[in-house]
């Protein structure tokens, strides 16, 4: 635990000092990674903790993003207004869609979420007068808090960092709470929980709404960050790429989706500068992870750590201990 806390402090410190270390381009990249990490974290509630694989999560990202874009353009770019309105809109959307989706499971759940997200996509794409159609909405004013203007990338970075830490902390609390344990129980064996008297459908709906709402928050932040939103961010490929982030990072862990988001964004940005075959590279890496490290980057990291500590302390007791720790972590 101590080790974990230590790593956490180091990571947070690195993030706090980022604007002093990185050039503007990389700082913007980190900001984008943090926003997409929030998005991936929200999906992880469904995929990783509740065991519901969704291929329609971009719908809520889109609802939040467009809500915030329209409000910022038409009413006021006040950050809290756009953020909370997006949250509310995404919660409403996910509650309505969720009622239908949580009734089915497995592959049918995946396809139903896809269906709803594609319907939202076609709405966004067709309603040119509201959403700008295929060209999207641009020239969205940058967010304001009081008179503080967040068009400065460094200020905006800190704002995102603060929100990211809050959301990360909040989600950690949720998944470790009794509520989170019920979700994990649903993932492991829904029938058993049902027979224990849990109203699992309600729990699943709650997970769906939390995931959707946070997805909307991520969308809203993305709009504020880029001053732009277009239907391609609501398309199913966006749902697909966030799902890949969660799976490559390590679903069912807190840090996994964050690492996955960082990994994919960096890969997509850097690799595509050198070759047009970035899709193939992502595909190959994805296959390697599925075959060799099904627990994602987190699993890989743990494997490395384990072999490292094993070679350091060869005594049988410590071996057992780290094993126990490992098992414990998996349960968590």
């Amino acid at each position, binding site marked *: 635990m101590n080790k974990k806390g230590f790593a956490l402090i180091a990571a947070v410190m690195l993030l706090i000092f980022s604007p002093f270390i990185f050039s503007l381009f990389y700082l913007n990249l980190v900001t984008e990674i943090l926003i997409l990490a929030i998005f991936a974290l929200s999906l992880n509630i469904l995929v990783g903790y509740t065991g519901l694989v969704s291929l329609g999560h971009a719908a809520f990202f889109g609802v939040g993003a467009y809500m915030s874009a329209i409000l910022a353009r038409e009413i006021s770019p006040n950050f809290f207004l756009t953020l909370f309105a997006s949250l509310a809109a995404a919660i409403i959307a996910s509650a309505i869609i969720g009622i239908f989706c949580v009734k089915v499971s497995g592959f049918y759940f995946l396809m139903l979420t896809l269906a709803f997200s594609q319907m939202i996509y076609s709405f966004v794409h067709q309603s040119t007068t509201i959403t700008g159609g295929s060209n999207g909405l641009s020239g969205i004013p940058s967010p304001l808090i009081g008179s503080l203007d967040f068009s400065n990338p460094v200020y905006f970075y800190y704002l995102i960092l603060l929100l990211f830490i809050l959301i990360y902390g909040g989600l950690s609390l949720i998944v470790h709470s009794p509520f989170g344990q019920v979700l994990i129980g649903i993932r492991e064996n829904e029938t058993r929980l049902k027979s224990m008297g849990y109203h699992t459908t309600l729990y699943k709906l709650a997970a769906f709404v939390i995931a959707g709402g946070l997805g909307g928050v991520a969308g809203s932040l993305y709009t504020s960050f880029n001053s732009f939103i277009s239907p391609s961010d609501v398309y199913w490929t966006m749902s697909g790429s966030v799902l890949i982030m969660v799976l490559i990072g390590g679903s069912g862990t807190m840090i996994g989706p964050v690492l996955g988001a960082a990994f994919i964004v960096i890969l997509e940005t850097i690799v595509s500068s050198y070759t047009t075959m970035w899709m*193939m590279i*992502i595909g190959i890496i994805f*296959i390697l992870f599925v075959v060799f490290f099904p627990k994602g980057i987190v699993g890989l990291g743990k494997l490395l750590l384990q072999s490292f500590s094993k070679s350091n302390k060869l005594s049988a007791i410590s071996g057992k201990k780290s094993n126990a720790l490992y098992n414990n972590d998996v349960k968590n």
Partner: protein
Amino acid sequence: MDIIGAQLVNSISYGLLLFVITCGLSLVFGILGVLNLAHGSLYMIGAYVSYSITVHSGQNFWLALIIAPLAVAVCSLIIEMILLRPTYQLGHLSQVLLTFGLAYVIHDMTAAIWGSDVLSIPLPQSLSGTVTLFNQAFPVYRLAVIAIGLILAGLLWFIQEKTRWGAIIRAGLSDKEMICALGVNIQLVFTVVFFIGGYLAGFGGVIAAPILGLYPSMEFQTLILALVVLVIGGLGSIAGTFVASLTIGIVETFCRFLVPELSLFVVFGLMAVVLIVKPNGLLGRQVVKH
């Protein structure tokens, strides 16, 4: 009245085209339980290979129709042996993800081989004429697609229901251990089914190419459409896939005719409605949870 009739012919032709494209996916999923997300990619390889064959053989469509599906089936066989066979113990979800990663890889491979230009395959000479039905000219090829779809559906039904192979396959689906105990080589069954699935995907690619054309990212568009057909029909049921293909053909064609604004919306709307009302698809069996 004529226009309704004409649209009905359009519907059936489009619906059966969907069936030709989807049946391979449905077969593999129904028997092996593996959702092959590289199905669209196999379809695309079929289309591109037949393009190359027609270009180099003086527009011989029939040669392409014989060779291209076999080539795809071989690709599919290689995929099964190298990628899927060693990973059966990882479980179905992992295998689905594997095929998805594969789709990415194949995407760039075909772009490297065939480039990113828009290509097309001309209609075979003997099928390029038109027939007048309901006071409108229809390309003969569209009507040929209807015939091909019906024959394919009949053939698949016959094999599945009336032959020893079909019996083994149906048995393998319901109880794998039992069929092993009876001395059937289940490994071989898997390989053969995947081979046939690949063949059908390639066949779909060749048949659809003269209508739908060849262009980058065509496989993802096809994949999504095929998945929708699969789900509406009910997973793993060839009959369901057939009914779903026709349903989508009719609903989409008439939607384009009556309320064209909803064209983009309607397929997914239909899928959502079907899943909400009948969560296992139109003709789906109750799928045992893994």
